[in-house]
């Protein structure tokens, strides 16, 4: 069996599971973000009274942190009341950050667990050898009532990534190049198991970037076997005992895709699709208005450090806005300690509260028709960051920083 199947088997109390089988899985942790007051409404419509386990449900306020509208403020208010009523142990208010960053930081993500959250990028937690999957509000409400979720045991696809990344090539470039080849519907309903020498040595942050974007191929979940860096990270944080699952040596994947990234160059996803990917050398001259470093894909300390290294002692181009949104308050504090905020502020950056920032077009850096943004985030669908007539280019934080300096889409290798 694959580690993913072992996690699912354990969750439904069976010794094994078969692909395609529908199982009722016990959920280890459920997380709701502030786009989803519908979860509470559905919970009540289904006659839910108390959540099944007050230590296993968290509310995170990130998409609207801090509240940009009266409606959003009202949503926060209702959700806070629910948290209080149910005496939830974990509640991350507007001072915490993006859910996918805050959850591991708080020790709520560890190997072998199943985490369901009301956000498609819950696949991020595959970085820790956990099974993370996104659900809608009503699915979440049934979990909050019963602690269980029906799941179809998915086919598992291997994406093997080998080699050592050249300088200035970040994990974001790696996953973009894979997306360009496997395409946005390349793994719909499937689980992706990332393997290979690149993944084996990759740090926690880089693993999170790659698993985060697995959902852009349609994947139900992503998985990476925990390495020493992961174990070190969870050792000091995990709030529960955990059991790491391992894939059997004789397991055979339904499909394998093999990539070598030793000669990869920085990658960019052109509008309006995550799989419309080109190498930076072939990007042409593209003038940008806004540059965004942040979100659950590109707002970790490693991302901001990469940007600070490029921007330190320099000034961004005159007609460009550079927006930096640390993924969490922990990241923000580390940026302060390491001096990155000072360096970026001197270069001309604007900052926003840790959280989703403008990623989904709700606030804090919305685009006007005709504007162009190069962003370290994960989606460039039409209208994602504001106007449907704006253009989004997805790239690594290093590429975003380099582009802020010149005002054009720029290879970070230039600096």
């Amino acid at each position, binding site marked *: 069996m694959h580690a993913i199947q072992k996690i699912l088997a354990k969750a439904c109390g069976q010794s094994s599971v078969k692909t395609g089988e529908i199982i009722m899985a016990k959920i280890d942790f459920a997380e709701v973000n502030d786009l989803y007051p519908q979860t509470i409404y559905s919970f009540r419509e289904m006659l839910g009274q108390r959540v099944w386990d007050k230590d296993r449900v968290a509310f995170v306020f990130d998409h609207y942190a801090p509240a940009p509208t009266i409606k959003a403020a009202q949503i926060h208010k209702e959700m806070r009341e629910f948290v209080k009523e149910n005496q939830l142990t974990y509640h991350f208010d507007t001072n915490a950050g993006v859910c996918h960053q805050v959850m591991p930081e708080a020790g709520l993500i560890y190997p072998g667990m199943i985490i369901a959250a009301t956000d498609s990028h819950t696949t991020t937690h595959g970085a820790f050898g956990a099974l993370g999957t996104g659900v*809608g509000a009503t699915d979440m409400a049934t979990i909050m009532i019963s602690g269980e979720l029906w799941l179809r045991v998915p086919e598992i696809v291997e994406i093997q990534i080998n080699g050592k990344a050249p300088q200035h090539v970040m994990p974001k470039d790696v996953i973009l190049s894979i997306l360009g080849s496997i395409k946005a519907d390349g793994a719909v309903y499937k689980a992706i198991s990332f393997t290979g020498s690149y993944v084996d040595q990759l740090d926690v942050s880089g693993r999170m970037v790659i698993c985060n974007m697995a959902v852009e191929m349609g994947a139900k979940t992503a998985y990476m076997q925990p390495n020493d860096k992961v174990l070190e990270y969870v050792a000091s944080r995990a709030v529960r005992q955990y059991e790491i699952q391992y894939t059997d040596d004789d397991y055979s994947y339904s499909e394998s895709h093999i990539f070598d990234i030793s000669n990869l160059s920085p990658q960019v996803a052109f509008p309006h699709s995550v799989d419309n990917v080109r190498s930076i050398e072939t990007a042409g001259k593209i003038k940008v208005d806004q540059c965004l470093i942040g979100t659950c894909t590109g707002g970790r300390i490693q991302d901001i450090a990469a940007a600070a290294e490029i921007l330190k002692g320099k000034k961004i181009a005159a007609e460009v806005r550079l927006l930096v949104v640390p993924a969490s308050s922990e990241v923000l504090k580390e940026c302060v300690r390491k001096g990155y905020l000072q360096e970026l502020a001197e270069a001309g950056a604007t900052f926003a509260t840790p959280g989703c920032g403008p990623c*989904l077009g709700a606030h804090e850096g919305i685009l006007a028709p005709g504007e162009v943004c190069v962003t370290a985030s994960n989606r460039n669908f039409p209208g994602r960051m504001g106007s449907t007539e704006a253009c989004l280019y997805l790239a690594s934080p290093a590429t975003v920083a380099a582009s802020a300096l010149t005002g054009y889409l720029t290879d970070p290798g230039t600096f």
Partner: protein
Amino acid sequence: MNTFITGKVVTLGNNVDTDQIYPGRYLDIVNHREIGKHCLEGVDPAIVQNFTPGDIIAAGTNFGCGSSREHAVIALLNMGAAAVLAESFARIFFRNAVNLGLPLLVCKGISKKVENGQRIELDVKVGTVKVESTGEVIACEKIGDYAMDILNAGGIKPLIRKKMENRR
């Protein structure tokens, strides 16, 4: 749920994501009727204006990809979509639709076989689409039993509510 549905087709392309079905800037709206008014605005605001309740969406591949927002299904239901056909669906969208009782069928080749405005008949249970004008019958993938049970109950809410009532 009525498993026979007839209606007029509204066609859409490939990779219609949840941001196009329901733009992020409206996510703080909680009133379902209001949500329905912005349905598919990211594709074309004219769609909702010209939509007749009971119309059936026929889309290309990967319909509903992107975020887990249930608002996408709520918007489609409140615009009056009777069902959604697509070459393929994104996983979370599929689950959300089943949970909220929006009938949907995976129908290979559908985007080439039906035209905007044509009337069609669906048999959701058997998994077929019949084009009224030509009589052509297109075979779709059958919905799994588990999902079909939920759809038949009108979504997961009535099912769980019944369970909760029995528990009392």
